[in-house]
C-alpha cells in the first residue's frame, strides 16, 4: 500500500503552549483512519495544521508524495486534501447551493461540478429541497451534512472530517456513518476525528488514540475496539 499522507514528528503550539507534541502516523490510499481522544487532546489542531491553517513548530507532512509544510492553506485543497472543520463552519448568509459551489471554488469543469451538486442532493435530499435558502437557516445536523457535502465538492483524494456527528440525533449520526462507509467504498480516503469512538472504530481500518498532544495507542479498528483501556476511557465501560 502507498501512503497518501505521512505525518512525522509533528509538533504544533499556540504561542508557548504546545498542543501537539510530536505525533507520527500515516494514512494509506483507500483507508479510513480515525483519531480519537479526550477533549483538548490535539485532534483539531492536527487537522488544522494538515490543511495549512496552523503552522507546525517541527515535523514533516507529506501528502501524495509532496511536502505540505510550507504550502499556504488556499493551495492545499488544490492538491486533493479537503477539510470539513469542527463546528461545521458553513457560510450562513450564502445559500446552500452557493455553499456547495464554494466547495468547488477551484474547479473549472462546470458541468461536472453541476453533476456533483446533484449527487450531493441525492446523498442528502434535504439540501436539494432547501437549495436556495441561506445555509444559516438549516438545523445543526443539516448544516453538518452541508459541511460534508461541501468538502466533497472538491473531489478530494483525502477527506478530513472533524467530528461529523457532533450534535446529531442517533438517526442522523447513523446516516453520516453510513455515508462515510459509502465514500470509502467509492475510493475516497478518509481521516476521521470523532468523539463517538464506538462508531469511528467500527468504520476505521486504523485508529490512533490521542491524549494531551501525543498518540498513546495505535491499532486496527477491531484491535482498539477490543482494547480494555479504550473501552474504559472512551466507550464508557468499567
Amino acid at each position: 500500500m502507498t501512503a497518501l499522507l505521512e505525518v512525522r514528528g509533528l509538533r504544533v503550539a499556540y504561542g508557548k503552549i504546545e498542543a501537539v507534541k510530536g505525533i507520527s502516523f500515516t494514512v494509506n490510499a483507500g483507508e479510513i483512519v480515525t483519531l480519537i481522544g479526550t477533549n483538548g487532546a490535539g485532534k483539531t489542531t492536527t487537522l488544522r495544521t494538515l490543511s495549512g491553517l496552523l503552522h507546525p513548530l517541527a515535523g514533516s507532512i507529506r501528502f501524495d508524495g509532496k511536502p505540505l509544510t510550507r504550502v499556504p492553506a488556499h493551495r492545499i485543497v488544490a492538491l486533493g486534501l479537503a477539510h470539513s472543520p469542527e463546528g461545521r463552519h458553513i457560510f450562513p448568509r450564502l445559500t446552500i447551493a452557493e455553499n456547495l459551489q464554494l466547495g468547488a471554488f477551484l474547479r473549472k469543469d462546470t458541468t461536472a461540478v453541476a453533476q456533483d451538486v446533484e449527487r450531493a442532493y441525492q446523498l442528502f435530499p434535504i439540501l436539494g429541497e432547501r437549495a436556495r435558502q441561506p445555509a444559516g437557516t438549516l438545523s445543526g445536523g443539516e448544516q453538518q451534512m452541508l459541511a460534508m457535502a461541501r468538502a466533497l465538492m472538491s473531489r478530494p483524494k483525502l477527506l478530513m472530517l472533524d467530528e461529523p456527528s457532533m450534535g446529531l440525533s442517533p438517526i442522523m449520526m447513523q446516516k453520516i456513518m453510513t455515508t462515510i462507509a459509502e465514500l470509502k467504498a467509492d475510493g475516497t480516503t478518509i481521516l476521521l476525528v470523532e468523539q463517538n469512538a464506538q462508531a469511528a472504530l467500527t468504520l476505521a481500518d486504523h485508529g490512533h488514540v490521542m491524549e494531551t498532544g501525543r498518540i498513546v495507542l495505535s491499532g486496527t479498528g477491531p484491535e482498539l475496539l477490543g482494547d480494555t483501556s479504550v473501552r474504559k476511557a472512551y466507550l464508557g465501560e468499567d
Partner: protein
Amino acid sequence: MHELPQQLANGLILGAMYGLIAIGYTMVYGIVQLINFAHGEIFMVGGFGALTVHLALPDGTALLLALPLMILGGIAAAVAIAVAAERFAYRPLRGAPRLAPLITAIGLSIALQQAVWKWYPDAKKARVFPQFKGESLKILGATVQRGEVFLLIAAPLCMLALGLFVARTRTGRGMQATAQDPDTAKLMGINTDRIIVIAFAIGATFAAVAAVAAVAAVAAVAHGLKYGQVDFRMGFITGLKAFTAAVLGGIGNIYGAMLGGVVLGVAEALATGYIEEIPGMSQFGGGSWKDVWAFVLLILVLLLRPQGLLGERVADRA
C-alpha cells in the same frame, strides 16, 4: 423658506456622494474588520489624480471628453495608494490587537494629507477644478447643476455594478465567503489575501468616482464642502461623514452604505433648511450646524438600532 424639492435634491446629491465613499469603509470593514480611517484621504488622492489628468490635457478640451480620462486618472491614483496601504501598512498588522491597525489608519490619514500638501504643486491652497458650463437643469421643481447630474447617474450605476459583481462572479462569492468566515474560505481554496486587496481596490475606485463627481459638481450643495476645487483636507470631514453613513446603514452591508449616505445627506439638507423654522431653534439652523445634526442622527440610530438600518444582528449558529 427653502423649497422642499430643492432641499431633497440637495440631500440626495450629497447623500449619493457619501454613499459612494461609504461603500469603501463598509467593504473593507466587512472583510477585515478594519475601519480604514485613511479612506477619506484615498478620496482626496482620487481628486488630485483627476486634477493631474486635467492639467496634462491640452487647454480647452471639452469636459465631457476629459471626464472619462480624469476618472481613470483618479481611480489609478486612489487604487495605487489603497493597495499600497493594505500591503505595507495593514497586512503586517493582521492578527495584531485591533487598536494597532486603527492607529495606523489615523497616522496614514495624516501622512497622506501632509504628503499632498508638501509635494503636489501649489497644493497648499485649494486648486481649481474644471466645471461643466451651461445652464443648470430643472428636475421635478429642483435646480440641479450639470456636474451634479453626473453624480446622480454614477452612484446608482456603481451600486448596480458592485451588486452584480458580488452576487454573480466567482471572485464576488469568494469575497462573501471571506467576509463570513476567512479560515473556512481558505479551506475552499480562496486566496483571502487577494480578496482583501480587491476589497481595498474597489473601495478606492468608488472613492475616486465620488471625488471626481464631487468636484465636478458645482458648489451650493452644502456650505462646508468646497466644490469646484480640490484641496488636501477635502477627505477629512467628508470621510468622517461617509463613515457615519456606513455605520448608519449597517457596517459591512454595501446597500446599507448607499442608503445610509442618502439618509444622512437628506437629513443634513433638511436640517440646514428647516431647523431654524422651528420656534426656539432659530440659532441651530443653517449650514454651520449641519455636521452636528448629522452626528445627532448617528447617535440616535445607534441607540435605537445599533446594528444600523440594514445591518443584521449577527446570530449565526455556532
